[in-house]
């Protein structure tokens, strides 16, 4: 009688295995949804029909890099992307107007404020339009989000010259270094 109520070790192993597989599928789906979630970005330059320094959201949807700014939106097909590069930089924590006004603060208060900076990611893409013309676009976004968008783009058919992200130049952006070419 008791033999019927307890599961044999073999059945337990199979049951646990099934639970793990199910949980794994759920987790991977949740992760995939998290990646495609729109990220707040600033489009510095490059997208057709979008002004410089435009704030909006960026996501990868249906094989396109989708930028939305208010009611306007701009799409770039992932397959037309020839290169994707991520990097890191920093920007002033205190905003533009307040930052400028703070420069007038006594005893170097403004300069003290400019010491505080937040880390950001940069995403640079290179793509071709229907006529074969080369375009480039640069975005800045919260730290740690650029790599996810890059992975999504690559999964949707974008190309990258360096898949394993190593942007040696990005360090040059954030840290002062000097490189000079041959003199004329």
């Amino acid at each position, binding site marked *: 009688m008791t033999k019927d109520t307890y599961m044999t070790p073999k059945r337990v192993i199979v049951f646990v295995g099934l639970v793990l597989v199910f949980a794994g599928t759920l987790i991977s789906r949740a992760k995939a949804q998290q990646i495609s979630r729109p990220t707040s970005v600033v489009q510095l330059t*490059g997208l057709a029909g979008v002004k410089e320094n435009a704030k909006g959201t960026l996501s990868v949807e249906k094989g396109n890099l989708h930028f939305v700014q208010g009611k306007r939106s701009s799409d770039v097909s992932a397959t037309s992307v020839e290169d994707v590069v991520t990097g890191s930089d920093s920007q002033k924590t205190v905003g533009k107007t307040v930052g400028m006004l703070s420069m007038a603060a006594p005893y170097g208060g403004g300069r003290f404020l400019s010491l505080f900076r937040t880390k950001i990611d940069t995403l640079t893409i290179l793509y071709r339009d229907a006529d*074969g013309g*080369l375009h*480039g676009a*640069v975005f800045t976004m919260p730290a740690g989000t650029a790599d996810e968008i890059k992975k999504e783009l690559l999964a949707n058919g974008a190309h990258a010259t360096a898949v394993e992200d190593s942007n040696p130049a990005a360090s040059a952006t954030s840290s002062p*270094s000097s490189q000079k070419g041959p003199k004329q």
Partner: protein
Amino acid sequence: MKRLLTPGIWLCVAAVLFACPLFARKSRSTRIKAGAIQVGMIQSDEIKLPAEFQIALYENLIRQLGKQGFQHVYRDGDRNAIGITDLVVLHSTVRGFKAGSERARQVTTVSGATSITVHCQFSRPDGTSLLERDVNGKVRFFGGNLKATYDFAKKAARVAHENVSLPDHE
């Protein structure tokens, strides 16, 4: 004495007014005749340039050329540029780059400047060089490092404006 001075001054003014258009004509005649202008991607083989700088240089250059009155600015690889008579291609190669620091600029005001030097070559599609210039872009006090690319683009577009004459661009 006054009787002599007044005609003399008028003569000088007349000479200047007469000479100015002559010089202007001379400078216009030396301008490169172009059907359209095509901007090549910024090359930086010798200098390691951050990708965002390279793209910002290219995009700002195209934008500034448009602002200078060039109506037909073709991008690198644009098939519409094929077959245009008197096409001028602008090749840009980065020759020097110093990545400054916005923080250092704001804290010290004397250090941390970002500068970039680009060799601009205006040529025909077959490679015949028409004009070569070194143009630099700088950001000394305010703004992010990428502002140097905007400074370069403005200067390079001015060089194009002064030296290239398009049919729709006087």
